[in-house]
């Protein structure tokens, strides 16, 4: 590209207590180009873009925007220089409406009054939403939206800010193919308008589809910057992980599956959310649950787990009919649930890795309610090792871990709890390929030792790669059940899409 870079980083360093997050990073970002950042969990991607946008400040090194050296003390200054960010962690304000979120900080005013022009704001919002193909009302409260919709609102906000650089930190981790396609259309529009895009994702398919240039980070260091046309997927993985990877998915052996039905759902209904959902889960199997966003998968799982009320139908666990009134009862019956929203529902962010790891099994491993501290420390360290969680030690606050490492802590919590049935809702959101493989291996081990797993996932390759059977949901109903032999993505898509059948 003959153009001048919009943002130039040279010799950026950043440390946190006990962690050197970035060392000597130098990289440039050009207008009209999608620049991908790739790296393992905790490699420093989010830290890097937070420095560009003004959330953090560099320890040393320089940041130039449009050739001018700057040091942003907060995101306001970054925004003023034309830098918008979609953060890895959802950052919309739950108590405001969609329109208020999208126009936060740049509300249209009724001339001469200082009052917000709500009408024009809602109207403009609706236009923005329509233009990126999102069906949400501008007046809806964010609190009432699901994660995917919230993510789309964030995307809408970032792209409507008329910025010269739009940073997207894992924008698709809670989206399914349909929304991803919509996002890519938006990105292509941005490119046409000569906007620079920084794109972070752990999904290699997306990277190759949308990226122009890629920078690979490992342990806070920049390993390589290259044009995507010049690098293969295998190379990317090797550079990122530091070794060759041969196996990505671990599917349990069919022989491991027993006839015993451990969980049986019959005609489960929660009015307005899902209806007449029936399925069986056998011992030793991984049941994949696929579907589009909003198909009601999360809601079904929460209801089975006792977190939400059922309006109809019944559920049996290990042959016994159950009516869980709280997750507690489900846990006692041997069920665990890894929720899709790790920050809101999975983790005590203020608490340590250790305390989070032991939380669901603390009582079971205590004597008369007195915590077994040695057990607690040991088990936390054990799982840090087994999942390669990147953390200074087991006493670090989970708030300070990178997104993927936080997810590993949530997974550890439920592996420690020794559930017999594990429900995993988007378990590998934000997790790098290497760690994903380790988690699949652990899942395989789990079912081969007599456990059973229901895995809800919006990532087709994952569903196909690890499940033994696949259930597909559409608009709150089960639209298909496939034995996972030679299933192709399009078979699933057909059952999941609204306009199919």
């Amino acid at each position: 590209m003959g153009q001048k870079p919009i943002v130039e980083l040279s010799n950026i360093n950043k440390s946190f207590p006990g962690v050197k997050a970035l060392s000597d990073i130098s990289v440039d970002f050009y207008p009209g180009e999608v620049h991908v950042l790739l790296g393992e969990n905790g490699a420093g991607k989010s830290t890097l873009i937070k420095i560009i946008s003004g959330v953090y400040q560099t320890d040393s090194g320089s940041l130039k925007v449009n050739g001018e050296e700057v040091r942003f003390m907060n995101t306001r200054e970054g925004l003023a220089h034309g830098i918008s960010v979609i953060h890895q962690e959802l950052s919309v304000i739950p108590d405001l409406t969609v329109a208020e979120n999208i126009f936060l900080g740049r509300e249209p005013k009724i001339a001469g009054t200082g009052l917000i022009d709500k009408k024009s704001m809602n109207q403009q919002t609706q236009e923005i939403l329509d233009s990126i193909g999102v069906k949400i009302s501008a007046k809806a409260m964010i609190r009432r939206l699901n994660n995917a919709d919230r993510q789309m609102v964030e995307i809408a906000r970032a792209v409507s800010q008329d910025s010269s650089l739009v940073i997207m930190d894992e924008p698709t981790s809670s989206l399914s193919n349909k929304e991803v396609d919509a996002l890519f259309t938006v990105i292509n529009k941005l490119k046409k308008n000569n906007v620079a895009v920084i794109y972070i994702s752990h999904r290699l398919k997306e990277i190759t589809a949308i990226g122009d240039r890629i920078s690979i980070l490992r342990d806070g260091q920049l390993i390589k910057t290259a044009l995507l046309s010049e690098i293969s997927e295998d190379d990317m993985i090797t550079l990122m992980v530091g070794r060759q990877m041969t196996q990505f998915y671990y599917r349990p052996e069919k022989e491991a599956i027993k006839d015993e039905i451990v969980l049986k759902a019959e005609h489960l209904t929660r009015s307005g959310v899902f209806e007449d959902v029936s399925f069986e889960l056998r011992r030793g199997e991984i049941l994949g649950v696929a579907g589009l966003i909003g198909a009601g998968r999360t809601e079904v799982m929460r209801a089975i787990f006792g977190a939400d009320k059922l309006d109809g139908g019944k559920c049996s666990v290990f042959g016994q009919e159950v009516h869980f009134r709280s997750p507690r009862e489900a846990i006692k019956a041997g069920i665990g649930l890894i929720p899709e929203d790790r920050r809101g529902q999975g983790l005590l962010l203020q608490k340590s890795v250790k305390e989070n790891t032991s939380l669901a099994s603390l009582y079971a491993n205590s004597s008369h309610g007195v915590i077994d501290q040695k057990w607690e420390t040991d088990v936390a360290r054990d799982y840090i090792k087994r999942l390669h969680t990147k953390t200074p030690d087991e006493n670090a606050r989970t708030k300070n871990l990178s997104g993927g490492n936080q997810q590993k802590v949530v997974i550890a919590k439920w592996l420690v709890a020794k559930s017999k049935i594990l429900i995993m809702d988007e378990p590998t959101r934000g997790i790098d390929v290497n760690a994903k493989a380790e988690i699949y291996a652990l899942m395989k081990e789990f079912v081969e030792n007599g456990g059973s797993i229901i895995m809800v996932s919006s990532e087709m390759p994952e569903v196909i790669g690890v499940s033994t059977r696949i259930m597909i949901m559409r608009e709150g109903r089960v639209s298909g059940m496939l034995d996972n032999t030679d299933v192709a993505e399009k078979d699933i898509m057909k059952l999941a899409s609204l306009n199919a059948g």
Partner: protein
Amino acid sequence: MKKLRHITQDYTMVLFLAALFIVSLISVPRFAEVGNLINVLMQITINALIATGMTFVILTGGIDLSVGSVAALSGIVSTSLIQLTPNAGIPMSLLVIFGTSLVVGGICGAITAFNIAKLRVPPFVATLAMMSIARGLAYVYTNAKPVFGLPDAYAWLGLGYIGPIPVMVIIMIIILAVAFLILRRTCFGRYVFAVGSSEDVSQLSGINVKRVKFYVYIICAVLAALAGAVLSSRLQAGQPAAANGYELNAIAAVAMGGTSMSGGRGGISQTILGLCVIGIINNALSLLGISSYWQTIAMGAIILIAVIFDQNKKDL
């Protein structure tokens, strides 16, 4: 129409208020007289002024315990100033009252705001400290003696009428209306909700969180100071012991209305509901001539019942 939806969201509390009102109308002698209804409005005015500022603070997820002390200090400064001009007329009195409120409230509020927004002292501690300091100053300044012997014009704000409506009630209505508009219709108002809903996200979205926090504590202190000055006008004296414990009354009105103590949800209309419920209960119990001990008990019980109904309705 939009307003209607807004109200029906909280409709149990509205229904409760309506029921309370009707029961009082029927069963409490003299409650229904126009004079008494105006009395009720006068009796909630001071709390309303303080609670309005408190609403801003609580919406950001904070709290202000210093309001009673700041009110007392402001009443004393205001009365002391008016003593200097014994022939002051109404305009001069108003100037002193509003000027004092701005200055005393502004200074106290700025100190609190600085501690909270810049030095990150937890609101509870920062305002507790200001509560001590302002009250202590009020006593030091007066040596516990009331400031009295004020020009008659000074009482106009607190005791006068414009037509059939007491002046202070008019002030209350104006302030409630302005606060309502600010919270619902201005950027600043939206930011107040945003900060209370999530500070981190607000920060990331480019809101100047510190500045928002700064302003809410200043607003709260200025309104508290105004309440104190109006009180001194009503009582025609400045008392260092005035407005003691009013922080709890104000917070109760805000919380009862349904504004969340952790911020982000609620608003002025909720606070008005809370103020009315508390005001009517107080007035009705007092008119019924119930012993003050039983009044205390009944007050607690009724607040509880109101909120239980409201809460359980919301779940449905």
